[in-house]
């Protein structure tokens, strides 16, 4: 029996997380751009609705909280990250040495609607890079499982 059944479940969970987190980061980046008048002229379609902001805030707050638990408390359960890759995910996160100290501030900024700074966006991009690598790697395993 191959691993397709398990991998397909876990891959679908990770795609959902990757899509949601990426879209949320895009929303925050757009808000950051909108703070500058020149960007509004440069990108006339640029806009963020209240619903988009609320959804992005909810997603990122929960996602960042979960990362903190995984890193601080040895939590191995996650609604965002499938169990098959959680140890590898933790390992990859630990390579970002400043992440542990930066996370509390970032969670505070996001959850309390404080303006996001460029340095915060860099951290969010780093987290997305980790998710992207994990997703691609899991997909390769799924393809291999199929033969």
């Amino acid at each position: 029996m191959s691993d397709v059944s398990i991998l397909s479940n876990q891959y679908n969970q990770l795609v959902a997380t990757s899509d949601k987190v990426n879209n949320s980061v895009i929303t925050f980046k757009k808000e950051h751009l909108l703070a500058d008048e020149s960007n509004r002229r440069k990108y006339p379609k640029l806009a963020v609705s209240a619903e988009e902001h609320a959804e992005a805030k909810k997603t990122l707050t929960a996602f960042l909280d979960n990362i903190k638990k995984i890193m601080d408390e040895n939590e191995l359960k996650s609604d965002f990250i499938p169990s098959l890759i959680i140890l590898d995910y933790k390992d990859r996160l630990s390579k970002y040495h400043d992440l542990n100290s930066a996370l509390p501030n970032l969670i505070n900024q996001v959850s309390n609607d404080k303006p996001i700074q460029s340095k915060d966006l860099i951290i969010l991009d780093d987290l997305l890079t980790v998710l992207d690598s994990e997703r691609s790697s899991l997909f390769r395993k799924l393809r291999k499982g199929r033969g």
Partner: protein
Amino acid sequence: MISFLKGLFFDQASKISKMMEELDASTISPEIDEPFLQKTKDLLHELFQEIQHLISSGDLDIESLASNNIIRYNTIHEKILNIELFRFLVIINYDEAEVYFKKKITKIYDEINCFFQNPPIITTISNSDDYFWAFPGYDIIAVPNGEQRNLLNLPDLYHEMGHLFFSQYEKFLIGKINRSIEAFYNREIIRVDSEQRAQTLKTFYREKLVRWASVWVMEFSCDLIATYLVGPAYAWTNLKICTLSSGHSSIYNDSAKHPSDEARMRAICYLLNKMGHTAEVIEINASWDRFLKATNNPIPANYADIFPQDLLNELAENVFEGCKKIDLRTYADQIAKYDQPISRVLNDAWTKLFTSPDDFATWERSKIEEINTLLR
């Protein structure tokens, strides 16, 4: 960079259009399940629309979103490949073997009294190395090319059917096993401190707890569903697979994706005993014990804490009750109703292999022809 990235999304949209055109061609087998074909077209259409929406949104013109747009591109690429590998190729390669399996799986679903699900599509796009696999989200089961000429592996088809039942009725099937698993490991974690055992054991137990809850319960359940449906033949087919694992010294090894073969065999035998196959279990266990001695695979440290018999027994009891609740027919009940259900032929195949191995190939061929005639 912007025009390059935008071009990539146009290219993806073009690839999807070509796939949709091919699915509309007259070369597609008329035997393919129409809802499956339509759903594949719908999924491709949804992806096409997602790309069109992205192109017109203006997001692709924003330089500072480049990294996010690359992630979007890669994700869409995987989604296209996913449809291509697990649906498109199934449709394009649908041929005589698939038509045969379609009739066979319809007969099996009737025999086991499965009316809560339509029979899945059986495709022969797998190979001997990847063996049998199921993709519950797409309702397909893949079997190795040429598998329509074999009987001894077919009990594993019931395991893959188990994955489809599990995705629909998990709660009915597993009962409260997750509570028991959590309670067991929490007790062990407390014992680490109270008995001053190595602290590294805590991580070990937490990891096993996550594996049980997320994957192993499902794998054990599918073994137990297959045992419920096909009886002793499932144990023999499992022993055949274990022979391959033993070559990698993996009989007692677990992984994030699978519990150990040894524990799976214990769960299967427990259920067979409960179902009344006592004489067969004695025979299976005798072979299994000799197999374990002959292969002499290493037993990992703390093995007794990974797959305790009590948890296996409880899960087997729950799955048995769960199968009853969803009204699936046991192996014995299939025989009582149909005399020669497919599950009986599979058990006869193993008996024949043991009693007259020289005649087995001829017997297998004639049995398959008999089934073919019945299915016409």
